[in-house]
């Protein structure tokens, strides 16, 4: 393995808009909201940015293609702006582009901005859209919840977990995220819920009920990155540096080869194995202080806890019910509310997760602040369980 990204790049500043049904805002309003906070935090001017990476996923329902929407929104001074899209990992991809640019020395200071403006479709949930010329002719007529719901049937079959026990663990995942989100002023959904509400909610895609599904939100998040040396020269004392940035993309094995049993994410396992190696972590259950995983659906979070090697295979549901991942548990998960409650503007989500890890490590998370976190991990999962993109990123205190 190459020597990796560990400690080569530091976060100079971050920003995040309020997530939610932003009926009052265009995508450029959201971007400016995130980037203004980010610039202030970084303590730099726009013209100090050498290059930018811009992520949106479902651009056909809002800003359209290319890097132009970001460049125009911020009136950037004709610098390189690259638009990236990689399903729900798009925000993390923007961050990865900016980090790699700095690590390579091609840029001193780089910007990553993600945005999604989803609430102009006229209905709830993700936009229905054509899946492409060939795919639309043979892919199953699947919604996102329907695709992810199948993790539950496959998981309970494989591990012999009673469907009712699994449903209860899934419900507890959502209850925990609502508790956390209620404390976050930028979160989309800020109301605590009880487990019976989750269990009795209308069915969206069996066995996922309404509260097993994350919100579909408008929002934007941004990061400015540079080298630790430049950050220090700009007067920053406490630094958060990048420890690992990994990505794994399905190659069709899960979709077309019978070696995959449908109960876990092959990609997340690969990405997390590489990320721990890159970050020098060998006991993740002890060394990861907190994490934001891609809880698009409760069951996604549940199996991801195992694919990140934080829970043993077949036992995450027990850890969940034991409170291991609660805010006062051993590894708090979704401390900012997660996709479930902070919301899920797709292109912004990866950056939003990093934003919370950054705030926590710097001790700036307010009412949600955890006790002395060292390593924060973020995880995105885009696509479907049987064909997806998974990113695992680790950030932490810079001790150099």
């Amino acid at each position: 393995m190459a020597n990796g990204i560990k400690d080569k790049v530091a976060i100079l500043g971050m920003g995040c808009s309020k997530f939610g049904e932003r009926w009052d805002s265009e995508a450029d309003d959201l971007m400016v909201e995130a980037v203004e906070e980010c610039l202030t935090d970084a303590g730099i001017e726009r013209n100090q940015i050498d290059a930018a990476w811009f992520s949106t996923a479902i651009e056909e329902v809002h800003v359209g293609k290319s890097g132009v929407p970001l460049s125009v929104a911020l009136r950037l001074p004709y610098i390189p702006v690259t638009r990236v899209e990689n399903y729900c990992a798009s925000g993390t991809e923007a961050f990865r582009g900016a980090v790699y640019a700095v690590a390579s020395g091609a840029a001193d200071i780089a910007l990553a901005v993600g945005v999604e403006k989803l609430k102009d479709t006229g209905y709830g949930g993700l936009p229905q859209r054509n899946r492409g010329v060939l795919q639309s002719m043979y892919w199953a007529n699947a919604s996102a919840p329907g695709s992810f719901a199948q993790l539950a049937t496959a998981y309970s079959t494989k591990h012999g977990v009673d469907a009712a026990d699994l449903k209860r663990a899934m419900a507890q995942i959502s209850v925990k995220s609502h508790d956390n989100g209620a404390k976050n002023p930028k979160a989309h959904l800020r109301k605590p819920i009880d487990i019976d509400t989750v269990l009795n909610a209308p069915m969206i895609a069996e066995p996922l009920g309404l509260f097993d599904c994350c919100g579909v939100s408008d929002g934007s998040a941004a990061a400015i990155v540079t080298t630790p040396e430049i950050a220090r020269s700009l007067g920053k004392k406490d630094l958060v540096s990048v420890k690992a940035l990994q990505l794994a993309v399905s190659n069709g094995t899960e979709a077309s080869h019978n070696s995959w049993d449908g109960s876990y994410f092959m990609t997340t396992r690969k990405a997390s194995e590489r990320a721990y190696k890159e970050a020098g972590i060998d006991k993740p259950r002890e060394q990861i202080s907190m994490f934001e995983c891609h809880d698009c659906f409760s069951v996604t979070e549940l199996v991801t806890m195992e694919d990140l090697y934080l829970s043993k295979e077949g036992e995450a549901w027990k850890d969940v019910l034991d409170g291991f991942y609660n805010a006062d548990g051993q590894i708090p998960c979704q401390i900012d509310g997660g996709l479930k409650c902070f919301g899920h503007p797709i292109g912004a989500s990866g950056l939003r997760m990093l934003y919370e890890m950054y705030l926590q490590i710097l001790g700036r998370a307010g009412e949600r602040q955890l006790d002395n976190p060292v390593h924060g991990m973020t995880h995105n999962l885009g696509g479907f369980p049987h064909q997806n993109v998974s990113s695992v990123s680790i950030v932490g205190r810079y001790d150099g």
Partner: protein
Amino acid sequence: MRGIVAYGGYVPRLRLQRKSMVEANSWFNPGLKTKAKGERAMCNWDEDSLTMAVEAGRDCLAGDRPDNVGAVYLASTSLPFDDRQNAGVLATALNFGENMMTMDVTSSQRAGTSGLINALNAVAGQDGPALYVAAEKRRTKAAGPHELLYGDGAAALMLGTENVIAEFLGAHQTAVDFIDHYRGQNEDFDYSWEERWIRDEGYFKIVPRTLEGLFAKVDVKPEDVDHLVMPTVMGAVPKRIAKMAGIREDAVRDNLHANMGESGTAHSLVMLVDALQDAEPGQTVLLIGWGQGCDALLFRTTDALKALSSRRGIKGSLARRREETNYNKYLAFNNLVTQDMGLRSEVDKQTALSALYRKKEMLTGFVGGKCRKCGTVQFPKSNVCVNPNCGEFHSQDDHPFAEIPAKVQSWTADNLTFTPDPPQHFGMVVFEEGGRLMADLTDVDVGGVEVGMPMRMVFRVKEHDDQRGFTKYFWKAAPDQAGA
């Protein structure tokens, strides 16, 4: 000897209860109250004449698929395309290759039998056997008598000169422009004249003289007929015709009104297949087709009848049934009511015809690949083998998937995505020989799907592009029930 070599049948699983139909409409048409008995076959939302034809054709090929089929005919007056040969889609779905004759036969309720006579006459001089399929799904106006009388269904016959199970003894046709009903161009529904006139001036005059013509040609006497196959919605007519022609009353076949309904131009063949499933070797079968004249065909079964491999036929199809009591669902499935489909239904459904052509074996024929190097069976066929331990380039041969048994690995019932029949069931379907597909499930009931459930792939409507009048087909997984 030329004649029928094999048969197959298909009747959709849903059986709409006539009682439900009458309860919904007798406020408007009290005369319907006497017609509330029994049930009619009703296509699922994703079935039409073409999908039923594919199922009947597969049933006909069951167990003994000839590798030299030289012709495929499709008879129907309810084909999904006016101009795109439907028989060509059928042949592609059955993976026959391109070196063959294909033809649609249409425009009359008599098309089913007229086309059959022509196909039988042609088969002796042609390379290989011919697959002859008739299918019908007629639309009728709501609250009228026809929706109670009609039913959806299909039948298929393999015609040939070897291993004949029913020898073709001869036929006679009359062409009489007697308009009991008609359907004008671009019209959705039939326009019909008075029943008593149809009976007295039509059936009772035209059929007997057609039979006279037949019996003058063949060395068989009317009293020797063992099975009289005469489809008509007027149940009492065939007995009277039998009497007029000198055919034994006990030879008159049941018209399947009680449990299926009349399947238009397919019904002669549907009833014929039903008769062949009852027949003994050495029996004589008289087949009548009606519509602007009359066709009469005579067959005699042979000893080979009993050697035919087991298949669903019409009897097996009728046994595979689910009662449907929701008349509103029937109206919706047949586009007889303007439903609020919701904003999620508004996705553009254009089909790239060039892409469909490139991938026609995959999409219409359900052909995947099998790696020559490692033997892995996979769908879709691709440039690089999907086996993580192989990964060979350009190593796959065509491998048909349609007949491979499959099981459900994971599934869901999705209430969010748009479908004409929510919830949308779909899941990972794993094939016995290897290979898998995240597939739509069809013909399943809410609460009826389980992990490990045996499935059978079926050719169905994927979606309708109402904006452009195109119907998109693909394969879905349906429960593999006993006898299905």
